[in-house]
């Protein structure tokens, strides 16, 4: 059966060129970069190269790059340590984030609220965008940190980071952006964006899982999340994951080289898929801004059917995608992102997310367009909420 993977926002396949770059660092050049001997120094040099690759991609200085296990760690570190430092130094006690952030950001922010920080969660408009006025209204001179993701993982909405970061700066607050979904397709130059912190995870841009980085602007505060070693300028203890770092460096360099091509290819397939679905399936609507949207993201609500049921049916046809329904997440509520858009609750469990990657083809898209209408038809026939015409 033809397998079609359209869940690249969840994770991506490691690019063969990245695999090749990583190979020597498992059993051949396996030294610990902190070791003084030549085994260690060899590894250390390689890490240096990856650090340069990452810095170049972000337009940052090498010393501003901190390697870690991924964006979940990076986001936790920024949100849980930076406000504490700024509270101690200058009495800032306020954190701002948005209603569509990934759970690692929201949960970290809520944890800080429990520790006594004021927390403001900015709403988004019906397109899933944080409006600059919302931040202007919510920020004050006691705000320590503003954290808003560059591009949303569920609906692909691209936030106006440069404008938002400028507002934060005006009030003396620090600005963090989770750029995990943006890396593949958007300009991540930290000076253009004007951010103080930025997080990435390699496994979203054809690198290995379990490795990422935190960009921290020089002189911006950061607490030590993991103690016990001098690695990363005493900011993040733990033996460096050399093969992972090498892989990430190689993957980042490929993004730099191929970003324009990837974006163009993805967009063509995305538009083909969206047009095809709308044509073939009645009563479907797009979730999230049509224009300010990642070129690889299709997220639609299909009325009168439930997401996990569609997912299972698609999986049986070899197609992998994702959904925002409660049934698929184990909670009682649908995706907080879908709900933040104002999608009526009775339709909030019927969303499907398809995220295109570099290996997808027109045939993959056409296979989905062929198969999805039959699936929806069958499930609508069974649905007590579907109008009579579908029974």
């Amino acid at each position, binding site marked *: 059966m033809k397998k079609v993977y359209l869940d690249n926002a969840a994770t991506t396949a490691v690019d063969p060129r990245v695999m090749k770059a990583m190979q020597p660092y498992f059993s051949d050049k396996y030294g610990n970069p902190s070791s003084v001997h030549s085994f260690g120094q060899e590894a250390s040099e390689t890490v240096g190269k990856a650090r340069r690759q990452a810095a170049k991609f972000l337009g940052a200085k090498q010393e501003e790059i901190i390697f870690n296990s991924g964006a979940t760690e990076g986001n936790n570190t920024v949100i849980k340590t930076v406000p504490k430092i700024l509270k101690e130094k200058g009495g800032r006690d306020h954190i701002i984030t948005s209603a569509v952030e990934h759970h690692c950001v929201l949960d970290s922010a809520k944890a800080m609220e429990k520790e006594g920080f004021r927390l403001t969660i900015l709403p988004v408009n019906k397109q899933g965008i944080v409006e600059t006025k919302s931040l202007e209204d919510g920020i004050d001179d006691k705000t320590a940190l503003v954290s808003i993701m560059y591009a949303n993982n569920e609906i692909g909405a691209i936030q106006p980071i440069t404008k938002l970061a400028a507002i934060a700066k005006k009030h003396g607050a620090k600005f963090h952006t989770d750029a995990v979904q943006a890396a593949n397709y958007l300009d991540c130059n930290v000076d253009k964006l004007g951010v103080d912190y930025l997080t990435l995870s390699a496994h979203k841009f054809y690198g290995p899982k379990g490795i990422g980085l935190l960009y921290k602007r020089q002189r911006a505060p950061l607490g030590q999340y993991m103690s016990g070693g001098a690695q990363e300028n005493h900011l993040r203890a733990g033996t460096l994951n050399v093969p992972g770092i090498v892989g990430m460096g190689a993957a980042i360099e490929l993004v730099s080289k191929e970003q324009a091509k990837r974006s163009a290819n993805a967009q063509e397939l995305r538009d083909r898929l969206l047009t095809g679905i709308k044509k073939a399936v009645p009563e479907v609507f797009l979730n999230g801004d049509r224009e300010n949207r990642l070129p690889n993201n299709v997220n639609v609500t299909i009325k009168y059917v*439930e997401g996990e049921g569609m997912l299972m049916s698609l*999986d*049986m046809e070899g197609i992998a995608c994702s959904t925002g*329904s409660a049934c698929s997440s184990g909670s009682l509520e649908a995706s907080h992102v879908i709900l933040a858009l104002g999608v009526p609750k*009775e339709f909030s*469990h019927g969303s499907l997310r398809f995220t295109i990657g570099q290996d997808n083809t027109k045939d993959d898209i056409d296979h989905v367009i062929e198969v999805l209408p039959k699936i929806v038809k069958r499930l609508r026939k069974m649905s*007590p909420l579907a109008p009579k015409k579908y029974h």
Partner: protein
Amino acid sequence: MQYNPTILEHFKNPKNQGEISNPDGVGKAGNPVCGDVMQVFIKVKDGRIEDIKFQTLGCGVAIAASSVLTEIVKGKTVDEAAKITKADIIEELGGQKKVPPEKIHCSLLAEDALKKAIEEYRQKH
């Protein structure tokens, strides 16, 4: 898929799916806000559930649970059917060990919908 073959089979080819035009009882459980809605229709003759059909909006296990429910119930007396619980449904779906814990509530919904259908029947008669 991590679902067992029984669940998959009932999801792919659900039994007794549809509506009854002149039902003797209809029961609805769940709500669209939670993402699960089950509707059960029964036709009773001489105290026996002669026919039973379901409509379900929900995940794979919810649809499978509905299908399994109708198979267990069809042909039983109303009194026998009233005694069916979610445990019986889970058993037919493969047993506690084969149904993911977060999906147990789907069987509870099925039990609920059936009981409501029976209640409506009893009120009318």
